[in-house]
């Protein structure tokens, strides 16, 4: 059993859980994820580790489906029956020079530990955060502390620049000499960012394909990268954005849309 130590609303429909998990916290590195199951009757869902403390991990959840809806109703002191991690490969962390981190929606959470670690490696960090409205934005305060430059975009212009992150990213890539781009968000956003950075700067994306076990056993999360079948759970979740077949990913992510009473996360 894994105890919920803290629960906090971060933004519209978005909340944070701090879960007691000493062994996972001990090993977790930026870019890795966990799979959880609420109880005996629950499904397994993957969530990226957004931060960690000595004996606990921080998960950020967008309430969009069955299990995330159930998670949103849990309180401090409640428990999760199953939690496994850290899963997947950790991010490549090095002194690249200037790194632009582009995050959209829930992607803001998983990009935070990567940004923090890259800052610790003495990189110049430019962060672009995108949200639907200012109400959907979170962790601005955490990013201010580590980013050399922080750009906020909202679709309705209620905060920062009006429009998608791609517009801001185009401006950054024109002005700055970037050594690395890291992008996490909805596949359509990652595809657009990859399109802009192609043949200009190496770009890494973290893929959110549908998983079951998360340990390489089932192949549900497979995606084509460089023409080859890769499993997001064990070969990823991060891949070279310019080699990922995003259309394939987006199509496979619609697999269970029609099975409405059992919508996947």
């Amino acid at each position, binding site marked *: 059993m894994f105890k919920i130590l803290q629960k906090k609303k971060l933004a519209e429909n978005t909340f944070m859980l701090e879960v007691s998990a000493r062994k996972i916290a001990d090993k977790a590195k930026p870019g890795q994820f966990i799979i959880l199951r609420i109880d005996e009757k629950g499904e397994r869902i993957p969530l990226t580790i957004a931060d960690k403390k000595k004996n606990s991990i921080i998960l950020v959840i967008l309430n969009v489906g069955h299990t995330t809806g159930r998670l949103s109703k849990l309180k401090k002191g409640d428990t999760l029956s199953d939690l496994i991690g850290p899963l997947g490969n950790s991010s490549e962390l090095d002194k690249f020079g200037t790194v632009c981190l582009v995050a959209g929606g829930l992607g803001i959470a998983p990009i935070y530990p990567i940004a923090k670690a890259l800052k610790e490696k003495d990189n110049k960090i430019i962060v672009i955060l995108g949200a639907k409205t200012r109400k959907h934005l979170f962790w601005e305060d955490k990013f201010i502390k580590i980013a050399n430059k922080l750009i906020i975009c909202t679709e309705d212009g209620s905060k920062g620049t009006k429009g998608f992150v791609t517009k801001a990213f185009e401006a950054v890539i024109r002005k700055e000499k970037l050594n690395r781009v890291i992008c996490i968000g909805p596949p359509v956003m990652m595809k657009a960012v990859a399109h802009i950075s192609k043949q200009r700067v190496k770009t890494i994306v973290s893929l959110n394909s549908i998983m079951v076990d998360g340990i390489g056993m089932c192949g549900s999360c497979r995606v084509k990268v460089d023409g080859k079948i890769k499993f997001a759970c064990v070969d990823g979740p991060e891949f070279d954005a310019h080699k990922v077949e995003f259309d394939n990913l987006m199509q496979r992510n*619609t697999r269970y849309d029609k*099975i409405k009473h059992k919508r996947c996360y």
Partner: protein
Amino acid sequence: MASSKRLEPKELNPEERIKSFDEVNLGYTEQEAVEEASRCIQCKNPLCVSGCPVNIDIPCFIKEIKEEKFENALKTIKKTNNLPAVCGRVCPQEKQCEIKCILGKKGDPLNIGKLERFASEYESNDKNKDISKLKESVAVVGSGPAGLTCAADLAEIGYSVTIFEALHKPGGVMIYGIPEFRLPNNIVFKEINNIKNMGVKIETNHLIGRTIEISDLLKEYNAVFIGCGAGLPKFMDIPGEHLNHVYSANEFLTRINLMEAHLEHSPTPVKIGRKVVVVGGGNVAMDSARTARRLGADVTVIYRRTGIEMPARVEEVKHAQEEGVHFMMLTSPMSVLGDKEVSGIRCIQMSLGEEDESGRRKPIQIEGSNFNISCDQVIMAIGQGSNPLIAKSSKLKHDIRGNIIIDENMMTSLAGVFAGGDIIGGNSTVIGAMGDAKKAAQAVDAYIRKEKFI
């Protein structure tokens, strides 16, 4: 004179059983078991035992059944096999003990598997067997047939054993893979409980190589046994394999067996196909086909060789046929058809040529023989590769396929770390993994005695 015909236990009739996941084979009654056991002629030099990967004293337990000493029969089996209820159901007996049975020369071999299953039901309640504990301890990676067997054997010797399982339930392939109509979960859990009652601890949700490294385990335990199974499903790398509703057999079976996706209460989704094509000819292909059939699909198995070469157990093929699964032999897929979702599969006819390195005749494509089968779901059951996670993270020597390399004592390139079952390139059977695990348990014991001078 004993009958040359073997007695088959009753089975659920095919029309009824495809409406549920209830176990198909009902097992012997006491009377039937005694009658079948009486056919054994108690060979002085019993060949059946040599066919058993864990060397069960078969003539002895058969004699005990004949004499209606059923609990003794189970005790005899359990001397070398801690999972009799499982093995009695899923072992390929026709290729192991029964093929060697002398009765098979003139009639049917003795039904050893079904008698083993029968005996397994006579568990005496010797809960919490007090085995004197040694202070040495062993970590076991994986709670499938290999892990459980090795753990039980080591616990029997007196070691304190902890099993680490990645999934949320123990049992490995016996839980996520083999469906309930062939091996009910409660049978597996009963066997697991028996092993727990020997003092073995099971920690779920631990992925070794990520949650804990092998090097961490070596600090806490005197030795480690890796029995994590193969675990990476193979795909054919043909066009259209990325389409929605192309599943690996592992994904399809895991969603249903482990996550109960076919049940209304389960939030885990699964595609319930109307017309399903299963690619492959092994037990996993049969399990997938029969599962899809129970979910209401019209199911066709395509296999590139013929029935003679099919690796599945004879009983599984027979059951699949009875349940209305169609078989298309000498058929190989070329591509999966469809736009976003599967709408069919393009196949080609094969013929058999010369024997290949596996000793089976190699299938060759017949040019121009392409044809399409329409379907809305494709399940790839063409085998598995080894998950390289543990080998890579702890730098164990492994081959290009990811199989961990071991020496003659089942020890890996790291001292004190042993491995067995499918992760060393085993033969993909429960009993094969158990045979390895038994050998490894002996080697672990010898290693600890040598190193620690017990």
